[in-house]
């Protein structure tokens, strides 16, 4: 028995390393003597250990789907690929936090601690196989996110963001939990596998209870990935939080939430499930509303950070379209979109962060005439904006095209038309920013300073996949395809 548990621990190495990293970071931070030291060593240590986590995740990628710890956790290629996306996103934001002025110097290593903690929660959520691990992952993710969003603790905006996050987050987690409790009563089990087995045989009063409870249950997940009725907190929190935190929120919790939404959808929609019509209908309506609300509201924004927040809502609306088709190619489309979205978001926030550090604001004006001030930055930012809008040579186009293909294949023409309209709207506000950068006249002759060679190298390294996957998408698509095979 004990031997078996330790044997399973071998598949759980990435999470274990993360937990060890978090505790050692706590010790390392407490040993720092000078409060205003830059903590470079701690950041290098974090990056190296996260690199090891990445390597061990890549080794897990080939494993067959496996339930460990009494069926509490699933290790399969799907969850592993989602974890890889999350770890790369964490590495990027930890690097960003080191140079960003938005994070107080004495909180630099605390950012790493919190980020690794959220990462652990996200990993647990991505591989959750019963309601308890789902809830634990969701709360680990949320509770540390509340702290992160109020990181600039001397400023009222950041504190207000944290407070709104706590209140909305607590409410949605509670509502979700209430739904789970009734699901437990009906199915008599909290295991996803057992629930999936019982769903097709539901009828009468039990079916009615499950219909209502699954909607309540959806609130918790929908809130984490900020889909339409639960997106109210997103712009406020994204605006109030420091920029590295915002870029972190745009990647890690969203990917974790998406992973669990995919898994839960396949639980409730097993073969012959009476819930199929209502669940697919719910997700279709929510996807359409999410895209539209996100993109339409993004038009009127004056702060680039807030614009990126709304555009991330739009992208999530696009990504959950992969769920309505309910097959492997849908999951493959979600995974590919997730990979591309992660790189694009990181770059967009990097450049916004640097300019906002320099000018003290993140309005569109700081981008005016950027092409004269720092050509490299402007070219990469413009390309990423094109990619986010889904214009051909870049990977954003492949991701979007793939999503359209799987949706049209299943004859969901209505949602495809809505998505196409949304792409046009998105094109408008991304191009507005690109136009400001390229054709706008800079106020002065000053160059953008302080963008070190290391920063340039990192941004180019992140840009290569955005460019490369737009032309040679086969390898990443095959990776995503293999990872989506767990679903029968």
């Amino acid at each position, binding site marked *: 028995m004990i031997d078996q548990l330790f044997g399973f621990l071998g598949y759980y190495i990435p999470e274990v390393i993360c937990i060890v990293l978090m505790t050692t970071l706590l010790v390392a931070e407490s040993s720092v003597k000078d409060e205003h030291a830059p903590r470079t060593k701690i950041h290098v240590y974090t990056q190296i250990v996260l690199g090891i986590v990445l390597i061990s995740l890549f080794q897990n990628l080939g494993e067959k789907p496996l339930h460990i710890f009494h069926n509490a956790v699933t290790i399969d290629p799907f969850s592993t690929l989602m974890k890889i996306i999350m770890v790369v996103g964490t590495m990027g934001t930890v690097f960003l936090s080191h140079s960003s002025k938005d994070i107080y110097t004495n909180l630099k290593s605390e950012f790493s601690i919190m980020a690794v903690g959220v990462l652990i929660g996200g990993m647990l959520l991505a591989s959750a196989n019963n309601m308890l691990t789902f809830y634990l992952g969701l709360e680990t993710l949320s509770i540390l996110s509340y702290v992160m969003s109020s990181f600039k*603790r001397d400023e009222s*905006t950041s504190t207000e963001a944290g407070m*709104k996050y706590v*209140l909305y987050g607590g*409410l949605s987690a509670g509502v979700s939990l209430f739904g789970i409790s009734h699901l437990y009563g009906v199915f008599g089990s909290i295991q996803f596998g057992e629930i999936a087995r019982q769903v097709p045989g539901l009828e009468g009063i039990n079916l009615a209870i499950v219909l209502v409870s699954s909607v309540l249950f959806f609130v918790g997940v929908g809130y984490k990935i900020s889909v339409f009725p639960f997106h109210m907190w997103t712009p406020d929190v994204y605006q109030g939080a420091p920029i590295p935190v915002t870029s972190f929120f745009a990647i890690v919790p969203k990917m974790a939430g998406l992973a669990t939404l995919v898994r839960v959808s396949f639980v409730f929609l097993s073969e012959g499930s009476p819930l199929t019509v209502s669940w697919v209908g719910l997700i279709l309506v929510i996807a359409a509303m999410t895209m539209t609300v996100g993109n339409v509201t993004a038009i009127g924004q004056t702060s680039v950070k807030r614009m990126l927040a709304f555009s991330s809502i739009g992208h999530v609306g696009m990504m959950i379209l992969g769920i309505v088709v309910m097959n492997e190619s849908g999951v493959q489309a979600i995974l590919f979109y997730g990979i591309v979205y992660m790189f694009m978001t990181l770059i967009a926030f990097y450049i916004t962060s640097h300019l906002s550090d320099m000018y003290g604001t993140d309005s569109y004006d700081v981008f005016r005439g950027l092409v004269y001030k720092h050509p490299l930055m402007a070219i990469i930012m413009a390309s990423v904006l094109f990619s986010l809008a889904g214009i051909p040579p870049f990977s954003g186009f492949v991701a979007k095209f793939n999503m359209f293909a799987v949706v049209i294949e299943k004859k969901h023409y209505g949602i495809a038309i809505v998505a196409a309209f949304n792409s046009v709207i998105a094109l408008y506000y991304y191009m507005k920013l690109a136009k400001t950068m390229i054709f706008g006249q800079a106020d002065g002759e000053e160059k953008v300073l302080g963008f070190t060679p290391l920063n340039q190298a990192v941004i180019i390294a992140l840009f290569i996949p955005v460019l490369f996957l737009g032309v040679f998408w086969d390898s990443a698509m095959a990776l995503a395809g293999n990872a989506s095979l767990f679903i029968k």
Partner: protein
Amino acid sequence: MMSLVSYLIISLILFIVGLVVMIARKNIIAILLGIELILNAAALNFVAYSRYVTNNLDGHVFSLFIIVIAAAESAIGLAIVIRFFQIKETIHVDEATQLRN
């Protein structure tokens, strides 16, 4: 004699009271209390189902986890509210209006 239905009705009442508190009250501490009510409604449900319907321990274990997580969540929530009070000198939720379009 208590039956399953009476527990479910009580937990539903707790849930609705929690929701109403969250919507109606403007004091942030009261809103946090509303969250606690909702979480406890769910915990009560778990224990009642575990006792009367499913006859396994999953529900009991789940309710223990809920208690621990609720404590952690309110600790973080109160810390942030204290920070908010130090800056704004109020805990009225209508004062949180800096982040708007």
